[in-house]
């Protein structure tokens, strides 16, 4: 086979962008997951001062973390527009709720500081605005794993026909989403939503332990919170794996195939990371505990993408089917790849600058 054939190069580049897409989503989950989790923690805060302190602890970096989501969206549109245009249509309702949460949360950051009478309201907007994107992003992920129905032709045909307009003139080979708007809603996708909330809660707890001075009320509460949630998280991982094994043939075939031992070793490594996180947490090495925890997420995320391969959306879009034509993907690669290391360096620098522990009083005072 000609190693320089256009088809081969395009296939390689598309796979490269599939990896970068995975990276962008992972960076979003890893960085903003802690912020969102801390917001979920704030749902249970008894006073506004505590919510304010939690918000202040992430004031300098939450927007930088969140911009990874925007980058992931940009990569999806730039490299896999066929997925972008169909999956987002399929995920309309969960994305809509997640976006409302994101808007409410972004606004709450600004308003909570200045508000006097409505402080409580904006504190809640922040907390609920953290819960919504987490839950609905989890739902969207679970729904995506299930795949969705597609057909070619006119997307709005049925809605138009319901209003007495019949159109039959539009022919296109492009496959678009053709299911109902509630197709995303299944027991599994609701479970992944719950799972995402549990995972973020754990990340948020670890983050708050690392962010606040030991002995501070927030630190102490976050400690006991983390102890409880970590057990939930472990259970959630096991349940998700078994459930996926049961309902996704593409997953079970891979996991029990000839390379079963790789998956097993991988799972053992995940357990080791979880154990390290837990021991570091007990030993009050909070930053290490958080990093091991993020390591667990990285390992599971990588395993998920490896299981999905060669699909972007299981049983719906493969990388090759979904990718842009060769010259578009080449242009995208040429101009955009170099920005990734720069973005990572910038985001790291931002987090580095805002490191250091807070106490509740101090954070609230500066808030």
């Amino acid at each position, binding site marked *: 086979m000609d190693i320089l054939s256009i088809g081969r190069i395009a296939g390689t580049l598309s796979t490269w962008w599939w990896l970068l897409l995975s990276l962008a989503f992972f960076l979003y989950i890893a960085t903003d997951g802690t912020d969102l989790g801390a917001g979920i923690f704030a749902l249970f805060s008894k006073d506004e001062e505590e919510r304010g302190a939690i918000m202040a602890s992430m004031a*300098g970096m939450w927007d930088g973390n969140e911009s990874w989501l925007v980058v992931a969206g940009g990569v999806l549109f730039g490299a896999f527009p066929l997925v972008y245009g169909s999956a987002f249509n399929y995920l309309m309702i969960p994305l809509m709720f997640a976006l409302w949460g994101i808007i409410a949360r*972004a606004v709450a950051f600004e308003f909570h*500081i200045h508000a006097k009478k409505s402080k409580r309201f904006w504190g809640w907007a922040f907390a609920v605005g953290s819960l919504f994107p987490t839950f609905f992003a989890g739902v969207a992920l679970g729904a995506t794993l299930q795949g969705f129905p597609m057909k070619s032709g006119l997307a709005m045909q049925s*809605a138009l026909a319901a209003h007495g*307009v019949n159109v039959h003139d539009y022919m296109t080979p492009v496959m678009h989403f053709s299911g109902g708007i509630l197709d995303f809603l299944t027991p599994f996708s609701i479970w992944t939503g719950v799972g995402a909330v549990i995972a973020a809660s754990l990340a948020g707890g670890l983050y708050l332990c690392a962010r606040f001075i030991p002995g501070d009320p927030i630190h102490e509460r976050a400690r006991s919170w983390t102890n409880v949630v970590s057990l939930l998280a472990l259970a959630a991982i096991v349940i998700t794996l078994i459930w996926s094994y049961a309902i996704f043939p593409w997953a079970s075939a891979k996991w029990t195939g000839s390379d079963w031992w790789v998956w097993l070793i991988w799972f053992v490594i995940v357990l080791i990371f979880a154990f390290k996180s837990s021991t570091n947490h007990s030993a009050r090495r909070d930053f290490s505990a958080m990093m091991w925890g993020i390591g667990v997420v990285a390992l599971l995320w990588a395993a998920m993408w490896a299981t999905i391969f060669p699909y972007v959306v299981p049983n719906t879009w493969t990388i090759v089917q979904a990718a842009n034509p060769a010259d578009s993907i080449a242009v995208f690669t040429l101009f955009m790849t170099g920005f990734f290391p*720069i973005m990572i360096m910038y985001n790291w620098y931002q987090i580095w600058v805002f490191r250091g522990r807070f106490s509740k009083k101090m954070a609230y005072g500066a808030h």
Partner: protein
Amino acid sequence: MVIENSLPILLSRLDFAWITSMHILWTPMTIGMSWLLFIMEVAWLRTGDERWYKINRFVEKIFIINFGAGVATGVTMEMAFGILYGPFSQAVGPFFGNILGFETITAFMYEAGFIGLMVFGWGKISKGMHLFATFNVGLSSSLSAMWILVANSWMQTPDGIFLKNGLFQVKNWWQAIFNDNFQWGFPHMWVACVELALFALVGLSGFFILKNRNADLFTKLLKPTLLALIIVTPVQIFIGDSIGRVVAQTQPTSLAAMEGHYHTYLPDGKVNTGWHLIAIPNAKNDGNVFAITIPHVLSLLETHTLNGKVTGMDSFPAKDRPDVWVPFYSFRVMVAIGFFLFFIAIWGNWLRLRGKLNATELRKRPWFLRALVFSAFLPYLAIWCGWWTREIGRQPWVVNGLMRTYQGASHMPVAMEIIWFVGYIIFELAVWSGSWYFFTRVIKKGVDDIPDSSTLFDHDHADDADVKAGGGHVTPTFASKPMLRSDR
């Protein structure tokens, strides 16, 4: 009735129109004001005049609230192409998707990075480095505007592509990027951003002089701003005329809708050269019920000759005609605002020539000052009207001449479209009213509590200043220092 006006497609258009209209309220200020902040910073560094520093820091507070609102509404924008116009996003992916990808990756990375330095970096990084950061905020936001205009202009004049396998694939990147509409469309939008930012400064000056607060400071600001406007406002009118002629050549239906121009020829066979000041289009969209018409003006405007032929709506089948109401009136409002702002610039400079541009003289002319405050709001309306003209004039196409809007709309029932619309009315209005509330708070506080620039590198004071600069955020610290101090 064209399919684009049937309820499911109309709602789909309305959903998208609402979120874009609410997003364009924020971005022009970021794009235009970042350059003005840069110029003011240069003025401060070159002259050492403290007043430039104070104004810069004051305007920066407004800038950062505005930026936050732009991000909050922009995240939705980015996702909305796929959610509301999925089949369109798929078909145009090879070009349009790439360009939007360029925009998100370069603009977010680049702009977000330097904005952090610009807002939080005062006193922490050297003056030269800070100036460099401000410059890059200007450059990156203008780059972002360029990519967005590349994408949108291409929808007006889809050059450099060919249709294969249902996808608009790129034949010539150069032609596709520098398409016909882009060449004047981008300058028109970019100058609009600068004009908006200049009028925001002018409006602020008018307000403060009117209230007799820091009147000397704001008179100082008013002079160069008005001088810039006497150049910018007529240039914008000239660019507007130029893009009008591009539209006349490349999108004759859009131009005909903007002018309510239904008939290429009059009943007696002569060329229809009449320009309507006011028109009421009929329900069938094939003529005007009523119009006030001036002969020859339309030909003069579009062909620069007295009797040149301008193609009317009747040269196209009914299913290819856009609605006239919105393009016709929003175009007129935009043009009227353009000339009114030119007039304001003339008025201000005329006062200057007569030596009246000082606090005492200006305060004797409250109507001039009120007109300045009023003018600060008009560019927003003009930009809205311009985009409505552009987008509704292109109907019934989403990609001009190649893809109809109903072909690009996502699969969804009417009930869902209504839920989306109502939800976004609530959330976008919350962002809008909240931001305006904070603008008024910042303006109320004024410039007096901004510490002198001499405190910048004196860290005991700099900390207080920075808490304010971030809209009250915790001091971003390069940050361990202030925290450690409180620890002790």
